[in-house]
């Protein structure tokens, strides 16, 4: 069964610095989709970035980018120029071929002013 592992329950970063959140997954599928979601204290779930496994190029959305290593089954999220509004819980998610979307346990990110 596919699993998603986020090994860092909590992280802290100084405002304006760069931070990388790690995510690994286990799968035997060759084609799949990966996502990062952000959950601020409001509890709302917000899509940050997505990646198709068949694409070699790493996805980028403004200050957010991923390092997708398909062979290593790794999908880390890099946040550049961290801002106070980036403080949130971040979830990595994997979409299976049967359309089930499985989430990791999350990483709580603190931004230090």
């Amino acid at each position, binding site marked *: 069964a596919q699993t998603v592992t986020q090994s860092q329950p909590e992280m802290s970063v100084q405002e304006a610095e760069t931070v990388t959140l790690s995510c690994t997954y286990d799968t035997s599928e060759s084609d799949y989709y990966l996502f990062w979601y952000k959950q601020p204290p409001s509890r709302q779930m917000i899509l940050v970035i997505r990646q198709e496994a068949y694409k070699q190029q790493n996805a980028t959305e403004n200050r957010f980018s991923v390092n997708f290593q398909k062979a290593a089954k790794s999908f880390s999220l890099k946040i550049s120029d961290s801002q106070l509004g980036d403080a949130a819980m971040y979830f990595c998610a994997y979409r299976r071929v049967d359309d089930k*979307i499985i*989430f990791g346990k999350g990483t709580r990110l603190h931004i230090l002013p």
Partner: protein
Amino acid sequence: DAGITQSPRYKITETGRQVTLMCHQTWSHSYMFWYRQDLGHGLRLIYYSAAADITDKGEVPDGYVVSRSKTENFPLTLESATRSQTSVYFCASRVDRNNSPLHFGNGTRLTVT
């Protein structure tokens, strides 16, 4: 307003009672999902539906029942609530396109006493 709406926002119920959490989306998305969020577990998939009258179990379906008679509605019923079902419940939907992300409701916080 267009979107995905969950009700109620908060619910307190007693052990053994039946409770139904409502989810309504106005986008006509094919896929709908129910997740529960618990500290230390992230989001876990309870049930999902690929279309009206098509549902399938997720990771933690025991104790829950779903139905989907109309595309826009996907209620989740706890037939006999237990304390272990105290959680935050999220409904989500997505369009039938490969890289489409989940769109989440604002969640229902359920407390079983």
